[in-house]
């Protein structure tokens, strides 16, 4: 059946990085077109990336082939966004 309507999937990827890799990691994340927002953080996680994709398969493809391949990311924690509230 043809899909006539779909909602984009938004996910938040929290990354822990190695030492002295923050700039190249942010640059590589920025190169991925589906990543809409990148934040450099202080705390348990070093970088947050917001990703918007059309299908779960696309999310898997980007994560497996692009994000997971970036040198410097030593651990990541992905959350799917169910709903967003903005003021």
């Amino acid at each position, binding site marked *: 059946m043809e899909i006539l309507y779909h909602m984009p999937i938004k996910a*938040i990827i929290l990354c822990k990085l190695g030492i002295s890799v923050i700039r190249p990691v942010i640059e590589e994340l920025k190169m991925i077109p589906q*990543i809409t927002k*990148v*934040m*450099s953080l*202080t705390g348990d996680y070093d970088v947050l990336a917001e990703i918007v994709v059309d299908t779960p398969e696309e999310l898997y493809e980007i994560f497996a082939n692009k994000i997971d391949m970036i040198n410097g990311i030593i651990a990541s924690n992905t*959350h*799917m966004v*169910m709903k*967003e509230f903005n003021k």
Partner: protein
Amino acid sequence: MQNKYIFNLILANLLWSFIPVIVEDLFLDVSIIMVIFLRFFISGVVLLILAVIFVLINNRMTHNESISLKFLFKNLLHKNRRFFDIKNISYYLYLGFFGIILNIIFFFLTLKTTSIIFTMVGFLLSVIFIAFYEKGVNFEKFDVFKVMYIIFLFFTIIILIFVGSTGAVLKGRQVMLNGIIYLLIFSIAISFLYIVINRDAYSREEIKIINKNRNFKIPRFLIKMSSSFLIGVICMLPLSLIIYIIPIETDLTFEISTFFAQFSIIFLILGRWEIIFLIIFSTIIPYLLIFIANVNWKSENLTYSQWSSILNLIDPMGSIIFSVIFVNEYFPLELLIIVVFLLVFTFVIRYSHEVKNLVQAILLLKLEKGSFNRITLRIFKYYGVTSIYTLVGTYDLMLIIKTSSIKDFYNLINLRLKPLNDIKDIEILFINKNINKPI
């Protein structure tokens, strides 16, 4: 430019800065009270009509979630958490009468009894008053930027007092004690306006509607300002009558008696181009510009209220320049260049101060089972919480936080979030750098 709606604020302030030039000749034969009555009564009615038209268009011609007019007006009776828990209608009364009407009465009285340049001292004094208020009430630290911009403002004020007093003498007016008192009351009233105008809080029901239809904010703002204008004007009338009856001769008594005398030719006065300009270009359009900016504000850096307070300096700067150009106010060129330079520098320093103190963070929350629906909207009401993402994963909620100082951030975490039993764990991540890409 990071946020195109900054231009709305600049344009609104530039339109406001024309007011002293416009009213200069008007005050020769029209009472100050009459100008204020016509300006705010008609603007209040027009803004109210615009709110109703906007709601009707939204409900009939767009596919957006419908907005209930009844709900909008019922909001007048809701309590305002950010302003002593009083009802919104009382909050609009304080805002309208003390913040707007009183401020404009004494602004116009200062203009009429002294000079435009001397009156501009009031705006700069209010910036200093607000800085001390923030130090006293919010415990905001006086960092090097804040001390510098207060010093710069202080020097600007000295120059303006000197030039303004000389200019007043050249116009045949002396800066007397009454002019100084009017200036001080005007400064205090405008400081009150700047402090109170953004002390507005959405109720839980309003937040639900805003998330379904962002346009709800527009009629909400329009009704807020129209109510403030109309309630302010309505309060002004009986008070004018009381002052009129009291047998003490003041400038205000003269203006009030002229106002009552001119009531029979009110439509003639309404037809004057200065009054029409004041209503359309100095009230309705600037307020519409700031409503649009406020509703669509998407800055990754400073918040709307921070930019709004920084750009307030454009108003006195514009008035000084326009008064020199259009009504030949006395201002030696070399001193004018120094004042413009000092004000631009103050503007840059204020911006640096706000950016330096801005706290941006992400909070990741783990919630107790069964508390999801209950807590999300409750947290969303808190000052500083700009967005909430409900998540599937290790954490249940992600909050984007933006506060103007570390003190506000501390209050949010320790006084608002930590006491909530439904929150099991809070992970705080401060944002160093924020990179946004268009989708």
